[in-house]
């Protein structure tokens, strides 16, 4: 695991340590090779390689695993958290606190002593048809309400963004992909400073809202091509059709994902190029030529 790949999970670990009252300054990290650790300042992070707590060692502190392999043969007087990678708690090993697994592979011997084992179960929206339909309806309600409001109350705004999508697709795609990527990187690095973490979260949320805005406009564009007179209703129908198409695209491996991504960046670019619909996007007119 190199620094760029480790950064997101290290941010999570730093946050967890800060929230848990731990001392970030005392944190040690292993990235590669085989390492035995028999003492701990406060927190140890396993990001790569293999780290072993020998059978005769007792660590006083917490262990986080974000990559590589951690093998516990001795005792950990604290918590062990697995975010990614492999963790094995072997025969005779002891973990006095909580062994929390979020992701990765954990093997806990029946002869090991663990204070409390907790496994994080992420919500899986696709686990049942009812949940999927529920999520789809929720997305439709939010986008539909927003799209209906825009089409009925501020038609020129949604029209401006729509025109940027249909008339300047490539320009919207370029600006959308560039802005989305650079802002994403910027927010991740802002989060890493910890001081700017709230701003980074707000920024990421705003970026997500811009994607939704773009989706609503795509729905509006589809709606305007439907034989429905009222703009608001047509937009609602268009958004339903658009979301359905997005769902169907998701079923196509690779190409479906690329198409979804393409739609998202075009939408983001169109929203940004039109200053959220406040101004129609007109490219520069270059004089000369034929």
């Amino acid at each position, binding site marked *: *695991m*190199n*620094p*760029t*790949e*480790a*950064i997101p999970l*290290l941010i999570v670990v730093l946050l967890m340590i800060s929230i848990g009252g731990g001392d970030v300054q005392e944190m040690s*990290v*292993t*990235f*590669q*090779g085989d390492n035995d650790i028999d003492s701990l300042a406060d927190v140890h992070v396993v990001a*790569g390689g293999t780290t072993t707590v020998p059978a005769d060692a007792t660590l006083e502190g917490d262990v986080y695993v974000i990559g590589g392999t951690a093998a516990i043969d001795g005792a950990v007087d604290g918590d062990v958290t697995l975010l990614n990678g492999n963790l094995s708690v072997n025969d005779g090993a002891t973990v006095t606190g909580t062994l929390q697994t979020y992701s990765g592979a954990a093997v806990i011997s029946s002869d090991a002593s663990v204070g409390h084992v907790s496994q994080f179960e992420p919500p899986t929206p696709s686990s049942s048809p009812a949940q999927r339909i529920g999520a789809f309806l929720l997305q439709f309600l939010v986008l539909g309400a927003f799209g209906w409001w825009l089409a009925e109350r501020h038609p020129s705004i949604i029209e401006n963004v729509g025109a940027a999508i249909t008339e*300047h697709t*490539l*320009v919207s795609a*370029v*600006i959308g*992909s*560039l802005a989305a990527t*650079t802002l994403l*990187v*910027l927010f991740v*690095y802002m989060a*890493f400073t910890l001081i700017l973490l709230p701003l980074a979260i707000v920024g990421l949320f705003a970026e997500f809202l811009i994607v939704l805005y773009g989706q609503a406009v795509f729905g509006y564009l589809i709606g305007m091509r439907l034989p429905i007179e009222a703009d608001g209703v047509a937009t609602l129908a268009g958004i339903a059709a658009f979301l359905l198409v997005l769902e169907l695209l998701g079923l196509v491996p690779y190409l479906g994902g690329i198409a979804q991504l393409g739609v998202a960046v075009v939408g983001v670019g169109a929203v940004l190029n039109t200053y959220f619909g406040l101004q129609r996007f007109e*490219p*520069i007119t*270059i*004089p*000369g*030529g*034929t």
Partner: protein
Amino acid sequence: MGIVRNIRQRRWTTVAGYVLFVALMVAGYYYNITFVQLGLIDLGTRLVGMTETTVSMWMAALALVTLVVAVVTGVTMDRRGWSTDLRTKFRLLFGVVCVQFALTLVAPMIRTVPEFGAWIVLASIGLGVGFPVSFSLAIDLVPVPDRGYVAAAITAIAYFLANAVPLSWSIDVFSQLMVAAMAPGLLVLAVLSFVSYDRLDDLLDDLGAQHGIYGTGRFCHGASVRTRSLTFAVPVVLMFGVFFIDSLGFLRIIDTPSLLLSSWQSPELSTRLFIAVAHVVGAVMAGVIYANFSLSRIFLWTFALFALTHVMYTSDLRLAAVFPTITGNGASPLNPALYAIAVSFYTTLNFALWPDLSTPETIGTHSAIGIGVAGWLATFSSTALALYFQAVDLTLLSHLNVVQALSLLLLFGLAVGLYARRMIELARENGGARA
């Protein structure tokens, strides 16, 4: 896009102009970024036995001589009317390629410092004559609205080839490849320069007359851009800044094996291909932005991308400094990919900008000063600064930190400058504050 319309209307002469310009510029730029920028280091250090510092000093000298020769050539072209004579430009270019062909052929045989020095001087003359001449072809061959896309195509093809084709950075390999590639190019240029028969003459006459339509650049309509005006000086300064930070950062990156072997010289084809594709994506983006937005927008994006790239590089290094075990693990290909996008941005801008700041009467001078000052003088200065950093044993992190600071400063300076310009415009429009 004009080229699509030209193809639909079967205007093959104009289409041939696009193809010719892209081919010539790709060949010239590929030669520059491989043979000149990378091959010379190998020639100087491995075959002649000089230290890397000495070779860098020679390369700085090459940059300086090239600048002087270019300005003399550019001014002469405009004064003597060569800028508007297509045949003359092809003949000059043929002469330049002949010199470069001979220099490329003999380069692997050089073993002594005087030979190396003579080679540098002759190469500078070739480059100095070559780039104002080749850039001035834009006024004959490329319609103004398409210059952004044409510049993007040149950048994308040159960088894709330079990164995707696995070549060792050695003078022998570069020399063999270049000689093989230049031979047919030389033949084509000889035909264009000296052969005369009806169809070719008609083609060249048609192309040569196009500067009447395409000659006045995008930023020269309304009022011509004078060489001693702010309209010309500001882009020169900004491009100088971009070239400078790129060169200063890249000089150190290619001197750091862990960074180099995980990116541009990676043994993994997939990594190099990833960087090559990033170059293409960056060039296309820059082309689209250049053709659809104001000039300030593309400068802002370029500086923002450079700032972000160096923030990522320095953040990784800071992280590695805190956790030293990380240093042996190599770097992520994301950083060089972002770097590649930033480089493609300004390279595309560089190909389109100077012809667009010129008219047929000023193309030679403007492209010579533009590329000479922004490109070659920046390279000279950054090399000198990099050598100083090397002499004072500046660490990799400190070196890239300076580059990061400069890129952030340029980004901030440009944003403030644009804002201030708008304020001045408003003040002039309103004659003071509006109630």
